[in-house]
């Protein structure tokens, strides 16, 4: 084995890959969330479709996409490797009585379960939007004269219709709660693993991580909830939506 493989198959090396891919995926979440916020624009999906078209066609984005695939791939692969190693480290005879809830946070001990929920969601999510848009081609078409959206998928409509399916909304929200907890631990953990610990900055990183976890997961979860609860099949605000939302929508 060369020093490179040795480094990255060591316990700390694997953790470093977990951390790097995890933090990289965090940046993806930011981009994805900002893009998805276009859903809230009251323009019948024009902005969102422009955004999704850009994401689907821009060569730079398409290249980075492969990075994303690798990021997810390694994050999941290393998680499996580490879990296997860590399970073996305890040995065949575990504790009869173990009260780890008295010495650590639930989230930090259950990253695997949380990650698995997120993975299941991801597969459904990818099938529903990414696969159908990119490969299956069974999404509703936009048509029209706009050179950017010409003949391209009307992803907005696909999203809005999905967000009116109760079980999909439920899965989506559950996954976002998992993501929130995953990030609650994962964000600061990523910095710790890279050795970025400092008496001045670590407390800041910790609270930024908590805020990140809440904002990102709440941000994503707000979308299906918003469409499920307050809009009609075309994504237009329903008449019975709260007055506050009406006025916010009017402002945009």
């Amino acid at each position, binding site marked *: 084995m060369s020093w490179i493989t040795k480094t990255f198959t060591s316990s*700390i090396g694997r953790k470093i890959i977990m951390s790097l891919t995890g933090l990289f995926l965090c940046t993806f979440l930011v981009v994805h969330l900002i893009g998805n916020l276009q859903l809230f624009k009251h323009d019948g999906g024009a902005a969102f479709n422009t955004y999704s078209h850009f994401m689907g066609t821009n060569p730079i984005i398409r290249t980075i996409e492969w990075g994303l695939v690798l990021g997810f791939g390694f994050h999941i692969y290393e998680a499996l490797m580490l879990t296997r190693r860590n399970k073996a480290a305890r*040995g065949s005879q*575990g504790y009869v009585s173990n009260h780890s809830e008295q*010495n650590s946070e639930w989230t930090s*001990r259950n990253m695997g379960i949380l990650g698995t929920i997120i993975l299941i969601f991801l597969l459904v999510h990818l099938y529903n939007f990414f696969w159908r848009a990119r490969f299956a081609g069974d999404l509703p078409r936009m048509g029209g004269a706009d050179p950017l959206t010409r003949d391209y998928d009307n992803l907005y409509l696909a999203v809005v219709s999905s967000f009116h399916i109760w079980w999909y909304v439920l899965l989506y929200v559950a996954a976002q709660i998992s993501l929130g907890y995953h990030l609650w631990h994962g964000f600061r*953990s990523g910095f*710790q693993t890279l*050795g970025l610990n400092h*008496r001045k900055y670590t407390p800041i990183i910790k609270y930024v991580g908590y805020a990140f976890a809440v904002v990102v997961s709440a941000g994503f979860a707000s979308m299906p909830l918003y469409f499920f609860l307050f809009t009609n099949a075309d994504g237009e605000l329903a008449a019975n939506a709260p007055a506050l939302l009406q006025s916010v929508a009017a402002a945009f």
Partner: protein
Amino acid sequence: MAGSNPNAKPMNLTLKVWRQPNRQAQGKIVEYQVKDISPDMSFLEMLDVLNEDLLHAGQDPVAFDHDCREGICGSCDLFINGRSHGPEKGTTTCQLHMRKFSDGDTITIEPWRANAFPVNKDLSVDRSAFDRIIQAGGYVSVNTGGAPDGNEIPVPKEIADRAFEAATCIGCGACVAACKNASAMLFVSAKVSQLALLPQGQVERKTRVENMVAQMDKEGFGACTNIGSCAAECPVGISLENIAILNREFLAAKAASNNLA
């Protein structure tokens, strides 16, 4: 006869103790009753009572490791009611007192559980993996006799204090026992950061961390997932900051050392 509190009432307790005759044998939990336990007793003194009872009854006493009984040698190592060294924070088993329990309690007592810590007998485990990790590099290579005057190596007080805090690790293994992953990172990091912080440790800084981590992995300890149980259960309060330092040292060493192996 209670020393501090003449009104302290003696307790009767049920103990569920892991019994295992030797390393190869299958173990199991066995239940015992102990009576008239003074709240002023230490936990190990309570086990002494049990063992005296067992011996009188012609039964094999429970084997457990202990020595100084003042919380510094790191010998004692019991997993009590699901916690390393029991319920009290910052305390070794020998300094845990029975006043933390109540009359009629059932107490489960198990050995440290880790693949790298095989059970010798009952509650005694083999922690020699820790020694082998230190042997892999947890030292400064100076022979006796050649040292310069102590004051020729000034160390800023803040650095000396931080190194000292890392150096207080007693090597008991509570961190491994508490960790969901049976990881030894807190133990390893304490020694790595102590020597990485001090000027004396600079010469071998890179090889030390590379070799110690390699040995740690070889012993079969798990990987750290930053859960924090270790630091929470550490009887001498070794901080998680040390694990970050270890990660940093490892990364820097791997990136910059001339070691191609």
